[in-house]
């Protein structure tokens, strides 16, 4: 449970350096479980690791924006993002699933589904 004291301490350490908006969205999601805050966290993590930041926030870009071709997301950036999201939401993304995630929408929707399936342990 990410609401336990120990888990919260771990999450605080994990999120050191992340923008306040992402941290706030994470805690709000932990309390309420709404998808909008989950999206903010997922895209915030991706944005944090992108080598070249896009001119606009990721949540202002079309959902069809491609992770590799449009955002320059290399394999390490992708793995950093996935590793962090897995840590934060206690979910696992299989390699076979990972290669199917090519756009912002696919990333968002996949995480929504995984977190929902994981149930209380994730939220």
């Amino acid at each position, binding site marked *: 449970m990410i609401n336990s004291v120990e888990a919260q301490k771990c999450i605080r*350490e*994990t999120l*050191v*350096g*992340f923008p306040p908006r992402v941290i706030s969205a994470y805690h709000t999601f932990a309390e309420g479980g709404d998808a909008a805050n989950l999206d903010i966290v997922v895209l915030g993590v991706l944005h*944090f*690791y*992108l*080598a070249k930041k896009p001119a606009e926030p990721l949540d202002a870009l079309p959902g069809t924006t491609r992770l590799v071709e449009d955002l320059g997301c290399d394999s*390490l950036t992708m*793995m*950093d993002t996935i*590793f962090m999201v*897995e840590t934060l939401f206690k979910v*696992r993304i299989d390699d076979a699933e990972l290669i199917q995630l090519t756009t912002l929408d696919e990333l968002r929707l996949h995480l929504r589904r995984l977190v929902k399936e994981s149930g209380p342990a994730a939220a």
Partner: protein
Amino acid sequence: MAVPRIIVSGLGFITSIGNDRTAVTDSLRHLRSGIERHDFFPGHKLPVKVLGTLKGFDTAALQWAGWKWPAGYQFQPEALRGMAPHGLYALCAVEQAVADARLQPADLTSSETGLFCASAGSPRLTRHYLNQIHDSNGERIPPMGVVSTIAGTLNFNLAAHLGVRGAVAGFVSACASSTLALGYAHDEIRLGRLSRVLVVGGEDLNADAIYPFQGMRALSRNPDPAKASRPFDRQRDGFVGTGGAVALVLEEAGSALARGAPIYAEMLGWGQSADGQSISGSDPTGRGLALAMQRAMQASGVGPADIDYVNAHATSTPAGDASEAHALRAVFSDTGAQPCVSSTKALTGHGLSLSGVMETGFCALSLAEGLIPGAANLENPDPACAGLNLPRETLAASPRTILKNSSGFGGSNVCVVLRRWNN
């Protein structure tokens, strides 16, 4: 075609005795030590209580996002995310050196610019990541677990960050590594393959990087920061660890002059040899190091009588310093030459693979600023040093030619010769 003259045009320091060129010069001039009492594990039983500490940094956090560094540096997450602590130090040192040499971003991304690095990697992060893997039964493998930890981490990260296209390489010869990097950088420029090489050395400076040396009883047990590191002294009992990073721009003189860059020193040449004896110890006779010194001088067109100052490798270990003293006597005393000799590790501690480029940087400052660093903490010279000229205080002299020695595990000996720039 004329043989290019190769010079040092930029310097950057993150060291125990200063975080920039001015502070380092001041410390060398006044023999100001960077060694302090330090307990990595308060209450521990290990008899090692001193360290050449870095000031203004906090890299205790396992994640880069928790690190702190001095004001004036601004780094984006993408520059730091694949780095160990010494990567952060190296970024700071590189920024200084690049600005010092008046290099523009286009100079760095030119196919004429190379990057040669030396570091031992990051034992602490290696432990952390491997623990994560084991604790999760192999299910959680941190993406940066390789590129931030292995011995090439500096070259991987800095090459990507700077956009280096000319050449990128790492050197792994323990405490001779960054001197070796300087040597091969010199060759690349002399052969006309590159116009300049950014040479960078770095070390983490934490318990995982330093304490393993206690396993071979190589660390000083002396708790007094003023006496623990005392190269060539009878009472020396081991080295004091340090870390940080130093960056040095080595380049063909013409390109530096065209930019109006400062010229700290000319690198005349270098030489190397191997002891062929021990995994870690020096040849007690010093034969290997003597050969490297002779080769460096021969390649540089100078002889023992031309050398005004030797910046010794001497780390303050009983066996290593004696071996170097024998080598120095064979090369200099036995030929009637009497250069000043000191080891600046008395002030800094031993920076392992960082030490060669750090001390070459000190030598460049000595030539440019007109000083010869004294042999700090030396009270009673080892009898093996008989006949060597070991000034106790820094001399306000103007050395013309300096020899820098380095030795590393496996019997690696590397020496470089620097000369005061004279156009």
